[in-house]
């Protein structure tokens, strides 16, 4: 198995204003497989945003190691190589757009890397096309919708040609339409370009789209597996303040009441299917 990012016994803590140590991450070990789509779920304060910043070296672990393509993120000399390999997209699209014109903003990353002007042009055009914002390249970002701005932020990272994109709650500030635009873009990048995706979120329906779901609570990984596996643990998820997708919850509750039903359900269509099957069994 080829892992792009590896966390080994990562601890992250800091001292607050009263000099008391605050532990955010507690000996986390995790590896992200190349080309995979991983969702990290967690409640506020579970340490998931801190982890996002650890993945590209913006935060350095207090102890343990984070390696990206074998490079230790704590090593200053790999700083740019690591950030170029793992791009990070934040929650608020307004606060990550640097320039007043869409294409100039997308060019910011490659310009900093010292890429040739002609090559920058190609990368910018390609990045904007792959997020579906090419026709807006000469627009001013502040006139665009939240979803469009967030897609530009993604294009800005894509133009650096990363191998992995980490998105820290990219849809938290968007309306439903903007959310689906962004999620579709992420899925397409994963499927068509083989981009490794780490999506940090607290929306169950978004996490259900991933290949793998990691659930964090109190700075620890408490569940890790396919969406089916993870969402089966209804009581554990509820105890850490997370919900399960409603169809999953329904069938799990029915099962608990003694109904003979298949619980591998993530969306409404699958739910209807197993309910119909269960009803037929009942009749017989």
């Amino acid at each position: 198995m080829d892992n792009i990012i590896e966390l080994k016994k990562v601890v992250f803590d800091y001292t607050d204003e009263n000099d008391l140590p605050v532990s955010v991450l507690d000996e986390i070990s995790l590896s992200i497989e190349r080309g995979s789509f991983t969702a990290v779920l967690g409640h506020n304060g579970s340490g998931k945003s801190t982890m996002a910043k650890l993945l590209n070296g913006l935060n350095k672990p207090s102890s343990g190691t984070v390696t990206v393509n074998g490079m230790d993120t704590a090593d200053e000399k790999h700083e740019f190589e690591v950030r170029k390999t793992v791009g990070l997209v934040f929650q608020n699209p307004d606060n990550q757009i640097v320039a007043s014109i869409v294409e100039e903003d997308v060019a910011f990353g490659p310009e900093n890397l010292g890429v040739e002007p002609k090559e920058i042009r190609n990368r910018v055009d390609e990045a904007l096309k792959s997020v579906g914002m090419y026709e807006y390249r000469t627009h001013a970002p502040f006139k665009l919708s939240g979803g469009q701005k967030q897609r530009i932020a993604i294009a800005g990272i894509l133009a650096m040609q990363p191998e992995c994109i980490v998105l820290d709650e990219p849809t938290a500030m968007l309306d439903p339409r903007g959310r689906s635009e962004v999620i579709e873009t992420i899925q397409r990048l994963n499927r068509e370009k083989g981009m490794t995706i780490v999506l940090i979120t607290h929306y169950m329906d978004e996490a259900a789209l991933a290949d793998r779901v990691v659930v964090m609570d109190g700075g620890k990984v408490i569940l890790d597996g396919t969406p089916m596996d993870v969402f089966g643990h209804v009581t554990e998820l509820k105890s850490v303040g997370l919900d399960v997708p409603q169809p999953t919850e329904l069938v799990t509750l029915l099962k608990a009441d003694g109904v003979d039903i298949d619980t591998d359900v993530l969306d409404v269509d699958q739910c209807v299917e197993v309910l119909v099957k269960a009803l037929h069994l009942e009749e017989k």
Partner: protein
Amino acid sequence: MLNNITIGQYFPANSVIHRADPRVKILLTVAVIVILFLASGFVALGICAAFCILLILLTKIPVKMYLKNLKAIWAVLLLTAALNVFYITGEGDPLFKWKFISIYTEGIERAVFIAVRIFLLIIISSALTYTTSPTELTDAIERLLSPLKLIGLGGAVHVFAMMMSIALRFIPTLIEETDKIMSAQKARGAEMDSGNLIKRIKAMLPIMIPLLFSSVRRAYDLAEAMECRCYNGGAGKTKMKQLHLSFRDFALVFGVIILLASVILLRIFPIVLF
């Protein structure tokens, strides 16, 4: 109210002026401003006005946009005009006399002259910002100031240009935010449009404090986002858009040289209309 600010804004379009080299545009704007101050007499001013009108037609931006600026500066225009009307004493009899106020023909001429000159100054500088994106503008300033690198100020020039472009980038964002905070405070019963000056200034505090707070937060977020995109203070940075001088730049320079020449000629050999 806050959405009507057009000075300093950029209107994307595909015109000769938009595509001209921003460095040339900046230098020529400065040149035209100097020429406007050199212009003596209405003939020279008329030539300048004709030049400015031709220029704004070339920008393909609706003339309405330029006229909007008049709204913002009409008070200044009126005040300077009025001062000139009342203060300038000419030869011969005054046109109008009442107690200590006397108005002369020269005063009125001068007032019109100054008002037109100020208006042209505003138009020509808006033509620059309307047709040049903030990034181009700061990029051009950075390049124009690049001789400072020779005395070891290269880093400072880059930082200055970066600060300017970020400031310009965040103007609309902060205006939007101010509007939101104002609405939120109004919804909580804050009164901002009534009372005397001190009361109004006090009423601004609940707007300024959250705005300041969120700006600091934004600055922190932006710094992280810039780090994620490998920003390191401009060392080894390249530019997607290279600046090349082309035929249209030389044509513009040529136009301004002719303007300068005619204004200087008119200073030496004035044509008096009346």
